[in-house]
């Protein structure tokens, strides 16, 4: 039975629209993932050197034993955010004559097939082989590897168990995350406890008593069994699904937008789209994280004015870039409805401009505290803000006319490649290069000020010629609308 499930699973993977469409994306993604793995592998290989630098006064093995538990704590937090529940896929088998036990076993087993379970091995095993094995012998090294495996399994099922529970009650997720963060804070800030000491308490003993390795294994098995029992008792769609019990949803309106008539209505709808759907919401939240970008660049004097343009553009325009690159896919699920309703496409475009302008203004205001690093920074932010709402909005909408991929809004944004096509890669080129094409020649000749002024002027010119661009985009759209609508209909 399990082998049938597995073959279905493989088919689902290869035949899904997500993976199957574009070879180019798969190759690029493959390289990216390989690069990440390679990075962790290098980290694993040089872990002894890194630990030596970080804790120069400590014994290498003691330091190593100390960080293991810290890793697993942060691992748990990461898993809670990112790891998917392997659940809804059993739906088509529930009513068939398939034994519940084999379904549950399958569900519980496939939960192990997650990248998260690979990291600890890549990270820790090289060190264990290099240092522990030579210091204390093969048996101890084996004990370390076994306990790492045990803890990984334990963490895996613990995270899934918490996630399943929090599907029924959202508070559980918040409380658990809070507790983990509290544990972290009480070590690193308040110094009440020392996770490293606790971690050493166990792994230190492991060196003398390799049999202790059975404790994490036992924990892992216990956690697996708990999951198994829970799944078996709750093999119902409502409890399995990632859909949370919904609270009362009230209607909202944005009085500020009302004065813009139907353009305002459209922009208002899009704000609701962003706030009420998981993927678009995470795009917005990711944008907020970019507000800290400046702290990295402005505190380091290595990065000159050339970098500030880049940083300023990203901080004030991250929403235009991050959200705009997938336009109009966000509205894929009701695109037919928009096409037949009494919405003229120029209004539709004006609403996009309005949305971009409103949100970018918000983001610009959020970056004003960076004036702390000098008024020039604020000036560059303002120039890039003008550039963003002038040039980048039009650029993004031009590429939106060439985007034919549907997006499912209800899925999260992390590791979600749905809707990604060659379009986004191509878009990033003019997005990144255009300001430098104008700025760099002047900066190299020593007239950076003129370069900045030209950037601002270009932005302003684009803002004042919006009507013209809207007409161009509209004409362009009419040549592509059938293709766009058809692509969006393809689930």
């Amino acid at each position, binding site marked *: 039975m399990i082998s049938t499930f597995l073959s279905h699973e493989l088919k689902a993977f290869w035949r899904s629209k997500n993976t199957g469409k574009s070879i180019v994306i798969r190759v690029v993604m493959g390289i990216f993932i390989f690069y990440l793995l390679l990075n962790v592998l290098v980290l694993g290989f040089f872990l002894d050197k890194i630990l030596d630098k970080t804790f120069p006064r400590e014994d290498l093995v003691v330091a190593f034993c100390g960080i293991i538990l810290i890793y697993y704590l942060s691992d748990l937090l990461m898993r809670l955010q990112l790891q998917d529940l392997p659940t809804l896929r059993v739906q088509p088998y529930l009513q068939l004559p398939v034994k519940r036990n084999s379904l549950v076993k399958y569900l519980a087993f496939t939960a192990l097939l997650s990248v998260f379970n690979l990291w600890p091995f890549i990270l820790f095993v090289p060190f264990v082989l290099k240092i522990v094995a030579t210091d204390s012998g093969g048996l101890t090294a084996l004990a370390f590897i076994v306990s790492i495996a045990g803890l990984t399994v334990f963490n895996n099922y613990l995270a899934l168990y918490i996630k399943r529970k929090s599907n029924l009650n959202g508070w559980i997720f918040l409380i658990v995350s809070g507790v983990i963060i509290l544990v972290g804070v009480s070590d690193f800030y308040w110094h009440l406890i020392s996770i490293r000491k606790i971690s050493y308490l166990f792994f230190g003993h492991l060196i003398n008593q390799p049999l202790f390795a059975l404790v994490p294994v036992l924990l892992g098995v216990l956690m697996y069994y708990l999951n198994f029992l829970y799944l078996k008792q709750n093999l119902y769609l409502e409890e399995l699904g990632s859909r949370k019990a919904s*609270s009362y*949803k009230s*209607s909202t309106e944005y009085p500020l937008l009302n004065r813009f008539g139907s353009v305002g*209505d459209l922009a208002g709808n899009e704000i609701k789209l962003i706030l*009420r759907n998981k993927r678009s919401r995470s795009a917005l939240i990711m944008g907020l994280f970019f507000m800290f970008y400046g702290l990295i660049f402005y505190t380091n004097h290595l990065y000159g004015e050339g970098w500030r343009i880049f940083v300023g553009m990203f901080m004030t325009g991250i929403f235009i870039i991050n959200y705009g690159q997938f336009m109009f896919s966000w509205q894929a699920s009701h695109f*037919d409805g928009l096409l037949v*309703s009494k919405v003229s496409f120029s209004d539709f475009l004006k609403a996009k401009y309005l949305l971009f302008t409103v949100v970018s203004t918000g983001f610009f205001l959020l970056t004003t505290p960076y004036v702390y690093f000098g008024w020039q920074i604020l000036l560059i932010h303002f120039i890039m803000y003008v550039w963003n709402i002038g040039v980048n909005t039009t650029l993004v909408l031009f590429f939106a006319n060439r985007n034919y991929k549907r997006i499912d809004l209800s899925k999260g944004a992390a590791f979600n490649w749905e809707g990604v096509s060659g379009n986004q890669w191509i878009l990033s080129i003019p997005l990144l290069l255009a300001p430098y094409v104008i700025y760099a020649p002047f900066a190299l000749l020593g007239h950076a000020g003129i370069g900045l002024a030209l950037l601002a002027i270009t932005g302003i010119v684009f803002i004042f010629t919006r009507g013209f661009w809207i007409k161009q985009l509209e004409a362009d759209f009419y040549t592509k609308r*059938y293709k766009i*609508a058809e692509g969006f209909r393809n689930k």
Partner: protein
Amino acid sequence: MIEIKDLKKVYAGVTVVNVPHLEIRKGESVGLVGNNGAGKTTLFRMMLDLIRPETGEVLLNGEVVAGHENWKNYTASYLDEGFLIDYLTPEEYFYFIGGLHQQSRAHVDDFLSGMGDFFNGEILKKGKYIRDLSKGNQCKVGVVSCLLQSPELLMLDEPFANIDPSTQFRLKSILKDLNKNKGVTNLISSHDLNHITDVCDRILLMEKGVIIKDIATSSSTLSELEAYFGVEQG
């Protein structure tokens, strides 16, 4: 009202719709029947300028739909859930659609209060987004949003498929009333032969993309259609 000339759509070498000529006059109530894959929805989509035909054109009130927007002022349609903005509450959606037709909120509220029977207390003020409604209730939202636009031409694709029996009967009487008393042109597809012959006074039967029968509804129409669809009985 509707004129179709030489309309043809081909998918992967197979002709899915082929209508050399069709005319529907203002005030007619036309039913479209045919088995799955007969091309009903494709025909609807071409009439609404959602897909590009290989050849031919569709004219609404003498104007080609492709490339024009005027027809949107008097045409209301609901083909599937893809027409609904599913992250809005039903109220927000109705206000949005009403707003497109320059209707005030008060006007929309007033209109909706007259729909209480049709909604059967399942739609308004339930605190749900449209995506959380059942398929049948989503269909109710779609149909009412069409009615809200007080159209001259109404196109519905299988409106009876997901709604409960009471709503089916209410919808039938609404459609009849619109047609008889307000002169609305109806174009409705359905698999329910009883309902469609009851509501419509002209039936188009499609098979493999071609309209093979075009009959004015009479007392014998139902049995004629049953004879066609009941392949093995004859």
